[in-house]
């Protein structure tokens, strides 16, 4: 089954996550992807605001039904690597992954990913926003201008939002199927090759504690390894940022 045969294009939605949730409950097949022109309540992790000029970015959620159930945290990395492969196919070259799954270009956000898991029916909703319009075209608000980058800021010839979406969906399907059939090895190799934190000093805001250490890469589970004063920690959740001097 080709996921591109199961795209659902909508104009304005609250969030593609909301629309995909309804489709998942109606037993939409794996790979069904809601793609919207604009969102009125799109958000990132922990409900954080996500800027998206209508028609200026890929706003999408793909329904996954992973064979190991809906609590597999490595899926965060799988989706990041899939989207990264799609961006590469569009000609974007020097992007990196910031654990667990932001896609950055020189510390500016190119794409954000959020997953909803835990569903008793085994559904995972993989939501993603990929900036396509250049910062100038998208009229990015001043307060986030320094954090924004669009695909068209990085290419010599502009590409359309729909072409980026097609490219990402093809690559995401291929990456996800490879993970489901062959395991995490290729995912971890691809992730590590573009790991923004590897070898850098990082601040970890984990639960109620804030810790500083050196990022040592990711575990086969996808967890982040951090060396803090000679002791290695394995981190599954929390906020991680490079230390800036």
């Amino acid at each position: 089954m080709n996921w591109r045969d199961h795209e659902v294009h909508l104009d304005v939605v609250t969030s593609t996550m909301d629309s995909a949730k309804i489709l998942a409950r109606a037993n939409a097949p794996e790979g069904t992807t809601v793609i919207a022109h604009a969102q009125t309540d799109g958000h990132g992790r922990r409900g954080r605001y996500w800027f998206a000029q209508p028609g200026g970015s890929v706003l999408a959620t793909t329904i996954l039904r992973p064979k190991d159930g809906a609590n597999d945290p490595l899926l965060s990395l799988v989706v990041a690597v899939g989207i990264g492969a799609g961006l590469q196919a569009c000609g974007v070259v020097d992007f990196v992954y910031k654990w667990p799954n932001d896609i950055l270009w020189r510390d500016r956000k190119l794409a954000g990913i959020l997953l909803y898991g835990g569903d008793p029916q085994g559904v995972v909703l993989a939501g993603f926003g990929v900036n396509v319009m250049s910062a100038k075209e998208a009229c990015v608000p001043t307060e986030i201008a320094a954090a924004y980058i669009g695909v068209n800021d990085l290419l010599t010839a502009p590409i359309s939002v729909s072409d980026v979406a097609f490219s990402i969906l093809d690559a995401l399907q291929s990456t996800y199927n490879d993970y489901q059939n062959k395991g995490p090895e290729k995912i971890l190799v691809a992730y590590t090759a573009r790991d923004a934190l590897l070898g850098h000093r990082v601040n970890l805001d984990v639960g109620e504690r804030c810790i500083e250490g050196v990022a040592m890469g990711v575990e086969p589970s996808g967890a982040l390894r951090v060396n803090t004063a000679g002791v290695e920690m394995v981190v599954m959740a929390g906020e991680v940022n490079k230390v800036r001097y």
Partner: protein
Amino acid sequence: MAQSIKAPITGTIWKVLVKSGDTISEGETLAILESMKMEIPIEAEDNIVIVEVRAMEGALITEGDVLFVIQAA
């Protein structure tokens, strides 16, 4: 008879949406956990009463930790 709801994953607790004494309907969300940017809602599987809330917002949890003590409504 009291029962418990346990964490299905290792991660952190982002939101706790109920308190002791609340009566909750099947399907309502009790808490939202987070692990590697996957948000995982904990939903009531039956109509229940919350006897004790052990989940604390911001806390680190390990798979199997008790989040709520509950009894049938």
